[in-house]
């Protein structure tokens, strides 16, 4: 079975990236949740890269002229999915951030009010 040089490079790169992603999880730099899409993406690219018959069949079925394009198309699709997923997560993180910021403002005010009350009750002490 003949593998083109581009196919091999792509597949090896995909495996390398997958290993790197898993290592990030091991070192707790990346949570399992966020590793999921990456691992799936690299696995698909690696399988397509190594398996010529599958790649050729898929390329023909999709009406693509060159096998390499199929691999890139899948890679791009996954990258888009990851980015969209991150945008959604980021929006939620922003909302949570707002809520926490607000909570903090209220706690600060209530603390200030308590301090003022304590200072008022015991003249000469407190700011």
């Amino acid at each position, binding site marked *: 079975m003949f593998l083109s040089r581009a196919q091999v490079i792509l597949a090896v790169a995909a495996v390398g990236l997958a290993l790197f992603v898993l290592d990030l999880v091991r070192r707790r730099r990346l949570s399992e949740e966020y590793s999921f899409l990456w691992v799936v993406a690299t696995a698909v690219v690696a399988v397509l890269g190594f398996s010529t018959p599958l790649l050729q069949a898929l390329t023909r079925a999709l009406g693509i002229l060159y096998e390499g394009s199929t691999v890139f198309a899948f890679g791009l699709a996954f990258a888009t999915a990851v980015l969209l997923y991150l945008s959604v997560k980021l929006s939620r993180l922003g909302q949570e951030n707002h809520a926490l*910021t607000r909570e903090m403002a209220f706690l600060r*005010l209530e603390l200030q009010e308590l301090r003022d009350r304590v200072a008022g009750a015991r003249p000469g002490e407190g700011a």
Partner: protein
Amino acid sequence: MTRSDVLVIVPAHNEEESLPATLEAIRRRAPGVDVLVVDDGSRDATVRVARERGVPVLSHPVNLGVGGALQSGFRYAVERGYAIGVQLDADGQHDPADLEALLAPVRSGECDVSIGSRYVTSTGYRAPLARRLGMMLFSGVVKMALGRRIADTTSGYRAYSRPVMEVCRHDFPKDFPDAPLLIALHRRGFRLQEVPVTMREREAGRSFYTLGKKLYYPYKNLLASLMALLRRPA
């Protein structure tokens, strides 16, 4: 300490220069209302300036935007039992002398939100061209949604009844509380009304709206207006 049933909410982002005059104007021209300053992540002495004048301050550790500041104010107003909340800019463009006129229709139950408008009657205010075009656009959008005209959709001088604040403390646009907010409130069945007020030029400090936001504003507000129409009012 006498407690009013009206809370004036003053969102302030780096307003140490204009805040003293604004607070003083409220004290002189609208005595008998309570005031809350919402410091939105200021890096200057905004908080100190307000506290020195005996005004309570809600202080965001980071900047949330004018909508986020108001939302904090609404929560404060609801939690502490105020009947009406008034939004008044720290930069001195809103005259507290108009406060009674703004409060009257909400107090009497004529409407749930009153909007201080520069355009109901001629008050001699003339905005720059780009701003005028934007206002025409959003006035048109609001007119389509509400079935009647709100001339000044961007006015930051408004009074809100308690039921409105109860909704807004949970759900409020975080950056520009303009046309989409008015549409969303209308869809929830709240009645809006414009009240003529005079607005002055900004006294000091910088506007909330920077260049990037000026470009983003029309996109965001058109999209948010559309979404306000598409969402089912909860």
